[in-house]
């Protein structure tokens, strides 16, 4: 006689204290839910970045509330604002000091393309000096747009072959 199986969830009596999963799934799960931003606030977009971190929009819902002003503790650089040529070397140096793995969000028109500053003083898009993962349109973008960019970046990180990258590094 076959008893009806009512076990729908994880049963530690059967499985022991062990969970089996893919390394990629675990690593990417950890990375996506604790992306600490490096707030590279250079202009008015930084105000929206602050709003994104504050209670109404609450970037903590996505595990990215720990703004790190030390690049060594940050995972994702959010370039929010106009990058001048004079500032560009500093931005690149701070990016270089971030530990791998690291990602970049170009927030707003200025960081993405120079925006309305078609001028002698402004870097025409931060992608000239950094590998950008997500671009956010808007001048400045709404906090929801930045949250959307963060979720897009999380989707991208979830698809990365992290384990093989770690082993081959």
């Amino acid at each position, binding site marked *: 006689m076959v008893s009806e199986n009512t076990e729908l969830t994880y049963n530690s009596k059967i499985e022991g204290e062990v969970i089996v999963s893919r390394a990629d799934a675990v690593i990417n799960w950890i990375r996506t839910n604790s992306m600490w931003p490096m707030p590279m606030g250079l202009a008015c977009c930084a105000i929206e970045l602050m709003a994104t971190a504050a209670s109404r929009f609450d970037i903590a819902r996505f595990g990215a509330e720990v703004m790190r002003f030390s690049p060594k503790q940050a995972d994702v650089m959010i370039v929010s604002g106009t990058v001048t*040529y004079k500032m560009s070397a500093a931005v690149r140096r701070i990016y270089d000091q971030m530990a791998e793995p690291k990602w970049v969000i170009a927030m707003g028109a200025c960081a993405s393309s120079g925006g309305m500053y*078609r*001028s002698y003083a402004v*870097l025409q898009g931060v992608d000239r000096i950094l590998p950008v993962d997500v671009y956010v349109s808007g001048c400045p973008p709404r906090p929801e747009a930045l949250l959307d960019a963060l979720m897009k970046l999380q989707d991208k990180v979830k698809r990365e072959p992290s384990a093989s990258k770690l082993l081959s590094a």
Partner: protein
Amino acid sequence: MPAAADAVAAVKGRWPGVGDRPSLDLPAINVPAADLLAVLAFLRDEHGFDMLTDIAGVDWGVEASPRFSAVYHLFGTASHEYLRVAADCADLAEPSLPSAVALWPAANWHEREAFDMLGIRFGGHPDLRRILMWDEYPHFPLRKDFPLAGVDTPLPDLAVVAETKVNAIAAPMVGGPFVASSGEINLTEAEPRAKDESWNEKRPKPAS
């Protein structure tokens, strides 16, 4: 008699080279560069114009003579009156003026900005470095013969340049210049935006 008119009359009596300057708002005088510091000190000490609110450099155009001027805005904190003092640079290619830092420490950064943007050298300035552009920048970007988009220029941080292969380039001006239309009722149209779509990156701008 108001302090500003009083001061203008006194300055003109003492320095015959000083003349009236056309002005829509404030009392204004033109001062020869040689007399500039003496006039400013006189206005500060004898007529209570004790605050320097601004120094603005002006480029009147490539063909103009004199080409460069500096405009000083003085304010009397007791009389609550402004006075505008303008001085032309005699040399067209290497414009220079005496520095007012000894009279007002506030002149320091104003003069550095005028030097950075227009190349007016202020003799006797204690620290005449660029204030906005980086130190090695070879141009004066607010001169009339400098293109708005800029010109190709190497960046100063050699390590970063070696890594990124990036220099300062002329900005793409397609659809520009991006200037606001004042007096436009429709605010969307008045905003700075690409308005001339007759040319783009592939098709050159038609000769006007």
